[in-house]
């Protein structure tokens, strides 16, 4: 996934109605790009075969 620039992060936050402080922008950009990195390895899994179900209810015979 392409890294976001600080300007793009600022625009994203504005669109989402999230107020950010200008001095935080560089670190926030690093942090958001870091989180986006977590998604890349997940994309290698056969996610289309996976049905999301609640963790608990499938295991309980209550």
């Amino acid at each position, binding site marked *: 996934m392409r890294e976001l620039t600080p300007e793009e*992060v600022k625009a*994203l*936050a504005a669109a*989402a109605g*999230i*107020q*950010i*402080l200008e001095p*935080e922008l560089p*670190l*926030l950009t*690093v*942090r*958001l*790009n*870091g*989180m*986006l*990195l*977590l*998604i890349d*390895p*997940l*994309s290698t*899994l*056969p*996610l289309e*075969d*996976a*049905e*999301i*179900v*609640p*963790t*608990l209810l499938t*295991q*309980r015979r*209550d």
Partner: protein
Amino acid sequence: MLNSGLVNMSIAELSSLLLKKEVSAVEITGIFLERIERLQPQLNAYITICRQEALDSAKSADRLLTRAYPSNKPLLGIPLALKDQIDTRGILTTNGSLALRDNIPLEDATVVTKLKKAGAIILGKLNMMEFAAAGGENPPFGQPRNPWNTAHSPGGSSTGSGIAVSAGLCTISVGEDSGGSGRIPASFCGVVSIRPSAGIISRYGIHPLSPSLDIASPMGRTVADCAALLQVIAGFDPRDALSSRRPVPAYTAGLREDIKGIRIGVIREFMDDQNLDPEVRVATNNAIRVLKELGACVDEFSIPYITHSMYALGVILWCEGAALSRKWLEPKNSLLQQSTRLGFLAASLLPSKAYLQARQAQALIRAQVLKAFQKFDILVSPTSPKLAPKIEDTLKTSNFPIKEDVLKRHADGHSGFSPLAGCPAISVPCGFSQTGLPIGLQIAGRPFEDIAVLRVAQAYEQSTTWHTRHPNL
């Protein structure tokens, strides 16, 4: 003998002394309070010390002990401490954050109600990572330190729980474990912690980080103490929508059985991990040898998707935490540490697809883990592939400044699969590094087979002497 020995005694040992009137609950409580005050500047385990409340509870316990020992109070006179994520009526509960520095709950969490009913003495509220999410520079309630080496991290997010149990600043503790927050500090501090099966302990009154993954985690210096604590706090609670209605089994009684013939799978991906510390590898292999000697049938097994656990877990935790913490993210409200605030802000900007993919990955990982449990009764691995890092090194990466750190840090995690699969997992001490840092063994079982996990952990613990070592403080 008493002063030095009492602080490291088990529940059973303390109960026996109380029953024989060799020591009073007030004396025990006083000894712990003195030790907490002496070591607090060094370790920062506590946020709030409940001196008067603890002494009042101890006096009540002593009054009860003048009569026959009340069988419905299994923790009578036992000193414990709670992660500050857990609501306590009339006592400051900060969730590790200055944002809640004035928060005095009007009600106890369900686990606290049960502990009080069982006669436990609450010594105080323990330090933790802010909102159970992030550690960073300048922790608001002082830098928590590992009792085995104060230059090293005690792990988190149930930071103070690991420290306090290890350092003899309480007998037992209730932490919380959404993705390893109980087991990792247990591993780093050389104590025991179980993340029980999802749904068996009420979450009511525990500040949520990730509602789909959160659960309280009993901590103690022995498996038997964790089992005794679990026995008290487990059970259905109508105030928790995810609470299980299953009857509470006899966890403590289940410890007595041997483990001959039990099938144990060693998770290959975690043992083949290139980032596995060599000393952790040796300690884990030694532990596996002990389990074989105890009669377990041990084999390696591959669970390919398990290496993706911490990626999925990271996204789920941060997204759910961010959604719940939105009000604290407004700049005018924000008393959060920078690392917590940035983490929640970043997660607020993730596309919904990210959360969806993480939940899909969870379903795949869970399916593979449950399939492994068709072949094995128990899965084992190191709790953490690393020894407790130096505090200065953890601070350097608290905002993930380096891209490689992000992937490596998450790929390293061994604690994520059990919350994703809803299965119980315990960490027990299984050795020490040459520099004297503890190493933990993770033992996981099928959902709702917490007894099997406890039984294997107990059999291992009783065949070794790691749990008898205590930091020199």
